[in-house]
């Protein structure tokens, strides 16, 4: 049979050589135009005026501050959203409660809402004309046009990432393992750390990496709430835009290259994790001979 198969493959839809080459060709051209060309341009433009200019842009106080702010936002938003994601996934997959489906939909909303809408919404909640605005102002707490606003907006946009990775996996795993651990005398925390977490760790890491990438690259929501004060409330993506509007193309591209590098590192980490088996069962050795 095998020999027959190699001789005569059953014809599949679109399996003519011409058609195949055409499809592959279209994909390659599109990838080159849409993805590769811009990435190359970032590299080329960033180094257009030589290494010295590139270095000067990077070590410029405003750029450094923008980098620090972006890292700060990630340092706060990612752990908070990770904790939120784990809690939400745990609640949704291990318990039954009223409004569970609604919560599931609610978690997805930041994905479907444009970030700029989120930003504007924050203006109406925390702004001077907003609901909490006057109270916050009275207590002299600055949220909008300050670091808390940036972090809040970033958190809103990236809230679903960890939960979305965990929920399908934890749903598939069911409650048996936790019930077994509890029946053996383990406390809730012990069950979580010894049983639940090890079985979802790859999916969790994957979610954290995606969440981090999104926090660092977030533009829309943050641009509304940050106020774009150079050296104060400018994150890296906002800084790039500012530089570009100031006709500092090289500076913009140099800053962009940092974000692009982060993105590429993220992709590499993601691929590495997928190899380890994110969300999948690790490849195990063959089962032993059945001699029960």
């Amino acid at each position, binding site marked *: 049979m095998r020999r027959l198969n190699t001789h005569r493959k059953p014809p599949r839809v679109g399996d003519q050589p011409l058609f195949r080459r055409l499809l592959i060709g279209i994909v390659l051209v599109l990838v080159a135009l849409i993805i590769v060309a811009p990435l190359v341009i970032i590299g080329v433009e960033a180094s257009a005026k030589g290494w010295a200019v590139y270095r000067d842009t990077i070590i410029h106080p405003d750029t450094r501050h923008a980098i620090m702010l972006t890292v700060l936002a990630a340092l706060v938003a990612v752990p908070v959203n990770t904790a939120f994601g784990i809690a939400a996934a745990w609640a949704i997959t291990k318990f039954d409660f009223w409004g569970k489906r609604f919560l599931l939909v609610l978690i997805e909303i930041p994905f479907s809402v444009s970030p700029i809408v989120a930003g504007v919404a924050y203006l109406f909640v925390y702004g001077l004309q907003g609901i909490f605005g006057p109270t916050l102002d009275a207590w002299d707490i600055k949220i909008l046009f300050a670091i808390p606003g940036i972090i809040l907006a970033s958190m809103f946009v990236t809230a679903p990432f960890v939960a979305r990775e965990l929920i399908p996996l934890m749903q598939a795993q069911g409650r048996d393992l936790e019930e077994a651990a509890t029946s053996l005398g*383990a406390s809730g925390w012990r069950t979580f750390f010894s049983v639940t977490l090890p079985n979802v760790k790859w999916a969790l890491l994957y979610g954290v990496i995606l969440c981090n990438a999104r926090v660092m690259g977030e533009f829309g929501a943050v641009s509304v709430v940050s106020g774009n004060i150079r050296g104060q409330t400018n994150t890296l993506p906002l800084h790039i835009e500012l530089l570009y509007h100031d006709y500092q193309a090289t500076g913009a591209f140099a800053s962009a290259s940092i974000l692009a590098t982060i993105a590429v590192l993220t992709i590499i980490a993601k691929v590495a994790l997928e190899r380890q088996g994110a969300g999948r069962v690790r490849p195990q050795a063959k089962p032993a001979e059945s001699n*029960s």
Partner: protein
Amino acid sequence: MKIRLDHVVKTFETFRAVRDVSLEIESGELVALLGPSGSGKTTILRMVAGLEYSDGGHIYFGDQDATDIPVRDRGVGFVFQHYALFPHMTVAQNIAFGMKVSKVKREKAAIDARVTDLLRLVRLEGLGDRFPAQISGGQRQRVALARALAVDPKVLLLDEPFGALDANVRRDLRRWLREIHSELGITTLFVTHDQEEALDLADRVVILKDGQIVQQGTPEEVCRDPQSAFVMKFLGDANVIAAEVRDGKAYASGAAIEVAGLADGKAELYARPADLDWSLQGPGIPASITRVLDRPDGRRVLATAETGEHLEFDVEPERVVKAGDGGFVTLRRAKVFAV
């Protein structure tokens, strides 16, 4: 430890899974909860474990009211239907888990020694370093049992313990579980929908239907004296023949059986295939053979009575029978239930 369920009730949303079940399990007894799916047997088991709380009634462990004791502190060993072994831990780590998380602190050496003992008990010496994915289904089952026994439970609870295994492994494990039970003498309650398993393994069988106990007793009691048509049918193949009770006797076409304590009126005769005989001359129930099934332990004959009832009985393998033959079925013994 003696276990007592006192008028236990459980409702899921609108489904009444367990309705007023009272049950006593003596210390050291091995009891089977037997019933079709949806009969509430697993729910009862989970309530004894503390994995579900009852909506009404009480569960006693010895003299202590255990109804509200959380599963963690209840001291039960629970073996899950699909074993629920921790996939990221080795067999030895799985078995040691309960001892490691216990409030009673143990020396590492003591834990290791206990794990070795348990591995020997479940005949898995040398497999302690394997992961659950690397062993067979029957071996996983035994690891799950060792893990449950490691915490010295007061009661051992097993949910369909052999459900996911193939027939031969299942038979071996059944004998082996019986041996372990006699060795340890631990009070054991297990759930099954397989009557053969329940009858082979248990000291006492509790038969459930729609969340209620319909009969309980030793395998002999429930087999020889089923109290209802449901128990009769559920425990094994049964022929059903329409009959009529008059003056303490049940009459079917060509057969009459003495019955006591049944009111006159319509009834049904129930007889096991082994309780039917086949002869070419009457008297008896006239029938014709529709099919002959050959099995390793005999020859099963399917026949249709003149009155339309489907009958099954066994004959000697040497007996010459073939589809289309006519003859008479006689009853050696039968149970009569009013309809």
